[in-house]
């Protein structure tokens, strides 16, 4: 059994004893084989000394047990790393950022506390996955949708807190943005409820997110200021239909007006689905369009058809664009339609995305896992063309980039007005290869920052580097976060280092 850093055997033994009393002996894991299950299977340092690993894990099942575990950790100054379902693969999985931390595994907190169809919201615990929430809604025959990300086994809360997004209509596919109220255990064990939840016997915790006075929910996104134990989410009432049309162009420069039109339509909420943009270095052979944009609209059928007519008129006002009206799917989907659609666009969680990333005809010998490089760039055609030049220079035309089998860029529009140019790096057990992946990843971060782009989310191994690129005014944002960290977690026990925020005793000068 390994010790957490800067913790004596006596203190650790005392904490383990207290935790066993709090949660039961079977839910405190110290055996090497059990602790190894918390390794990040997609770690870019897998098997190397720098790999971030846990020293132990403890798995409470209730709010009160979380409080007890945290109080014990605070008393003995033992670093904890909360996870929800631990399936944040490509962004750290279930491993801590600060190696040697004890993982606080919240998977057993798996209650769907409420799904309210009338006002379309849910209140859940961290161990509830998208599959769990979907199944709950199906069994209860409620007429609301969830918004799943690509893999459905992740935590609804964990994905939102890590900044994840999905594939149905705005604003629901912005997972943190669609939350409404949270319950948080602070480092001293105290419980806070945010927004309207701070009112004893509140009747509107999941109805209105702002409450009274300063809004603090954002402090718990990608952070280490508390352990979120409940969170509310607004759900989408099932839309009657989804129609996805396609706009294409053979001309490279047309991406500029295509995005200008798209952005205006989206900002007016006429296009409310998650658009997809294909083109650039991934474009297929001659004769295929250089750019393709998918334009999805959710809503009642007459409204969808009328909106699509307007959308068509706006795009076809540009003579070089071709508009192809897509099939309209009515919901609930027919058995035939279920086999022909992308399920996440209809609020149905699944794991089919792994077919693209795993062994398939185009990738017969996969490395294993992957990590994502996810810079945010302005949602303009000029930016896409500039990003493509950057990608060509550093990946496509780079021998290392070709050797590593890097996939990208995937232009993601989970968030309104936002464009993420995702690049995927295969990660395996080959240390020499992983070393090259890390070097290229770090180079891409630095060059992107020089161009004014930075990542919105990253694996633990790169969080310090990326945080350091947000350096305006002598890194005043980082210093503000450190001030807050020291105030709410003076012993620095919670998720040390997460997203570049370190407690005082671990901060580099």
């Amino acid at each position, binding site marked *: 059994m390994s010790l957490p850093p800067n913790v004596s055997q006596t203190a650790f033994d005392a904490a383990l004893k207290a935790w066993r009393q709090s949660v039961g002996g079977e839910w405190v894991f110290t055996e090497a084989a059990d602790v190894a299950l918390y390794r990040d*299977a997609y770690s870019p340092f897998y098997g190397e000394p720098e790999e971030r690993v846990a020293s132990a894990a403890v798995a409470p099942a209730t709010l009160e047990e979380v409080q007890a575990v945290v109080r014990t950790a605070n008393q003995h100054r033992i670093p904890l790393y909360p996870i929800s379902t631990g399936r944040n693969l490509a962004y750290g999985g279930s491993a801590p950022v600060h190696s040697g931390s004890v993982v606080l595994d919240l998977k057993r907190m798996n209650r769907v*506390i409420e*799904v309210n169809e*009338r006002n379309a919201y849910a209140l859940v615990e961290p161990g509830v996955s998208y599959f769990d929430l979907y199944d709950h809604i*199906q069994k209860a025959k409620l007429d609301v949708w969830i918004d799943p990300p690509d893999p459905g086994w992740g935590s609804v809360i964990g994905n939102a807190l890590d900044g994840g997004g999905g594939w149905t209509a705005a604003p629901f596919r912005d997972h943190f943005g669609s939350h409404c109220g949270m319950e948080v255990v602070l480092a001293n064990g105290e419980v806070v409820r945010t927004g309207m939840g701070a009112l004893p016997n509140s009747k509107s915790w999941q109805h209105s997110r702002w409450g009274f006075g300063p809004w603090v929910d954002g402090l718990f996104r990608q952070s280490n200021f508390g352990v979120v134990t409940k969170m509310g989410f607004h759900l989408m009432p099932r839309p009657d239909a989804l129609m996805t049309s396609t706009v294409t162009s053979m001309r490279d420069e047309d991406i500029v007006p295509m995005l200008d039109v798209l952005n205006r339509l989206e900002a007016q909420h006429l296009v409310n689905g998650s658009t997809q943009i294909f083109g650039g270095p991934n474009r297929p052979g001659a004769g295929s369009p250089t750019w393709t944009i998918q334009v999805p609209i959710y809503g009642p059928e007459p409204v969808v058809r009328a909106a699509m007519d307007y959308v068509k008129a706006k795009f076809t006002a540009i003579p070089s664009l071709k508009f192809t009206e897509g099939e309209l799917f009515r919901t609930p989907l027919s058995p035939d339609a279920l*086999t022909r659609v992308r399920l996440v666009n209809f609020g149905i969680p699944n794991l089919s995305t792994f077919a693209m990333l*795993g062994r398939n005809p185009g990738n017969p010998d996969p490395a294993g896992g992957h990590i994502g490089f996810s810079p945010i760039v302005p949602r303009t055609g000029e930016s896409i063309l500039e990003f493509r030049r950057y990608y060509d220079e550093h990946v496509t035309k780079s021998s290392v980039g070709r050797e590593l089998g890097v996939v990208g860029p995937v232009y993601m529009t989970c968030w309104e007005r936002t464009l993420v140019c995702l690049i995927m790096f295969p990660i395996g057990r080959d240390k020499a290869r992983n070393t090259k992946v890390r070097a290229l990843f770090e180079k891409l971060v630095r060059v992107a920052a020089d161009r004014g782009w930075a990542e919105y989310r990253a694996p633990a191994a790169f969080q310090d580097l990326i945080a350091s690129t947000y350096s305006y005014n002598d890194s005043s944002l980082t210093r503000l976060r450190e001030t807050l960290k020291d105030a709410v977690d003076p012993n620095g026990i919670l998720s040390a280092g997460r997203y570049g925020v370190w407690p005082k005793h671990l901060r580099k000068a």
Partner: protein
Amino acid sequence: MKRLLLVFIGLVTLVSTAGAAEPSGQQVYERWCATCHAPGPGHPGTQSLEMKYGGKSPAVLLDRTDLSPQAVAVFVRQGVLLMAPFRKTEISDTELAALSAYVGKNFSAR
């Protein structure tokens, strides 16, 4: 998983928890494995094994006769390629025993 939403009955549902009693091996399989390993398109595990075995061995886990319960347990706890290991808070040792017996039910030592 592929049933879609039916219209209202209850407006509000309160607290549900996963599994009060110990689930059967089939239930564990359906909860954790079927989304990747069921037959047909859209199942990445099945797709991967189709390519790996090229028809020499069934790609659908439940059709396998060469997969011992012990081997199932090893894959669950160690993972393979994209499939990360499953922790004991996800699949307990008791559930793993039931799952391994269920998936390995057709195993015949040769």
